[in-house]
């Protein structure tokens, strides 16, 4: 119970910090950076849901990010749709495409799935790049409006936009939280652990993989649409697979398959990138080996490492006989909180 209260405390502190940030930091640049980080986090949560919990690597998500972004841009600028309608449509359309891609892609195994999604992602990139008349191609797409007012709330200032994106982020995190500790979340983890075992347990792996894929595409499209409206300018390179690799690095550093991973990883890396601006040219030189070294030596990432540490401590506590007896009695009642770790690093 003590651990749980400590977690509540942490969350409260983080929430307070997040809310107070723009008020404490008056430099508009930092507020801008933070907002962008939040957008990345949403996309990384999408990636985390699928790769971290179901165990498959989808390389198409950059494409979905771009579709979300471009659809918003095209609907608002070229078709003149009201902002929030276009926003909803962008997410919906991308998710729908995700359903179709998922239906086909998920029938393939492991390696084929990665290659298939890589190709789908590339096709999306090529189309965006070549279809000048619709997307502006290499010249880019400009003039995307900032989010429209909702009632009395206006989102024209960076600070307002910060809070808007923060709201979406919180919603995403909350959804993930509910999901991970639920039967559905456990089902995904079972699939990641062993598809064979999951099948023999009567789990419909196809349906579950598809559901988690579609939800992850939804999160990614959300990030894409927010990105479009925030940056107000798009280029085909957002569909390029290198965006995927960025997300992957944030996720890995933070901890794949954990709830806190995306936040930790994205914050850390964007912060480091900022501080180490002078190394900007060497950025990609560093990212690559970091990714590889991480996956070999420390695949759990930061959050994953923390979870394992906690688990080890609890194991040690458990071997104490008196604590054992008490814990056994408490075990059944405290299960409801999902405190026992259902996550793997």
């Amino acid at each position, binding site marked *: 119970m003590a651990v749980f209260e400590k977690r509540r405390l942490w969350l409260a502190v983080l929430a307070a910090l997040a809310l107070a940030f723009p008020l404490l930091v008056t430099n508009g640049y930092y507020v801008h950076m933070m907002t962008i980080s939040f957008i990345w986090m949403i996309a990384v949560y999408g990636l985390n849901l699928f790769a971290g919990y179901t165990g498959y690597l989808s390389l198409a998500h950059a494409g979905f990010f771009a579709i979300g972004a471009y659809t918003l841009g095209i609907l608002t600028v070229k078709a003149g749709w009201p902002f929030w309608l276009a926003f909803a449509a962008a997410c919906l359309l991308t998710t729908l495409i995700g359903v179709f891609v998922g239906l086909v892609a998920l029938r393939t195994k492991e390696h084929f799935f990665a290659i298939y999604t890589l190709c789908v992602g590339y096709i999306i990139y090529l189309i965006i790049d070549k279809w000048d008349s619709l997307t502006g191609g290499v010249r880019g797409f400009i003039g995307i409006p900032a989010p429209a007012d909702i009632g009395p709330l206006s989102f024209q200032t960076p600070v307002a936009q910060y809070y808007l994106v923060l709201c979406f982020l919180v919603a995403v995190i909350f959804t993930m939280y509910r999901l991970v500790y639920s039967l559905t979340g456990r089902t995904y983890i079972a699939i990641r652990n062993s598809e064979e075992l999951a099948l023999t347990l009567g789990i419909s792996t196809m349906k579950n993989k598809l*559901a988690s894929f579609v939800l992850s595409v939804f999160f990614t499209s959300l990030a894409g649409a927010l990105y479009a409206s925030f940056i107000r300018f798009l280029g085909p390179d957002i569909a390029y697979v290198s965006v995927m690799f960025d997300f992957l690095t944030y996720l890995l550093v933070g901890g794949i398959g954990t709830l806190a991973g995306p936040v930790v990883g994205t914050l850390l890396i964007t912060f480091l990138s900022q501080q180490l601006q002078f190394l900007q040219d060497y950025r990609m030189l560093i990212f690559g080996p970091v990714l590889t070294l991480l996956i070999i030596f420390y695949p759990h990432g930061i959050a994953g490492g923390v979870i394992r540490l906690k688990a080890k401590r609890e194991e040690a506590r458990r071997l104490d006989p008196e604590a054992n007896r008490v814990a056994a009695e408490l075990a059944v009642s405290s*299960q409801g909180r999902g405190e026992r770790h259902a996550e793997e690093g």
Partner: protein
Amino acid sequence: MLLHVERLTKRFGGLLAVNDVTFSVEQGKINAIIGPNGAGKSTFFNLISGLHRPTSGTIAFKGRDITRLPANERAKLGIARTFQTTHLFEQATVMDNVIIGHRLRTSSNLFDAILRTKRHRREEQACKEKAMEVLDFVGLTHVADRMVANLSQEQKKRVAFALALATDPELVLLDEPAAGVNPDETEGLEELIVKMVKGGLTVCLIEHKMSMIMKIADRIMVLNYGEKIAEGTPEEVQNNEAVIQAYLGGSTVA
């Protein structure tokens, strides 16, 4: 006959893993499948549980043809299965592992999960209760909160049993349940299997430990090179020429 397999054949490219096997599993009995290494036993289980599609032949469960049925549907009908290497989630607790066993009897989905609907809460509770029930049955309540990675091999096997039991099956396929387990613990597992059958289940197991098989099996089928070479009671099989030949040329008899 609870399970009836007719002329089942599985070919992997040029390799004939299971060849024209006809076999029945009687309800309420302990059936065993033995044979030298590579005889096709695990492939046979894979065919029954649905992880492989047969090249030819049929499988019927409770009178219904399940040959084309996907693995997860067969589990819902009542066929459970354990694996040689347990496939458990090592980095999670026993409870976390077993709780998912009852999932197939629940129907809540993504939305139920996110919105914490009544249905979800009800089913989550049901899964937990089932998990405690089966852990109690296999005698592992005291380790419910321990990490699977920290358990002994025998305990892991019991967790795998519990997991299978949590699916509320009628037929349980045990793939080498006593592998890597010492003689005392093997006896414990034997008792557990007998207890399962006494409780109304039907068991079909693959094993190499002859003492265990001879002690608890009601009926034995012997496979060699994918073919059935003998079938009968333990006494009949023990004295069967073909079986002795097959083993003399094959692996050790434990």
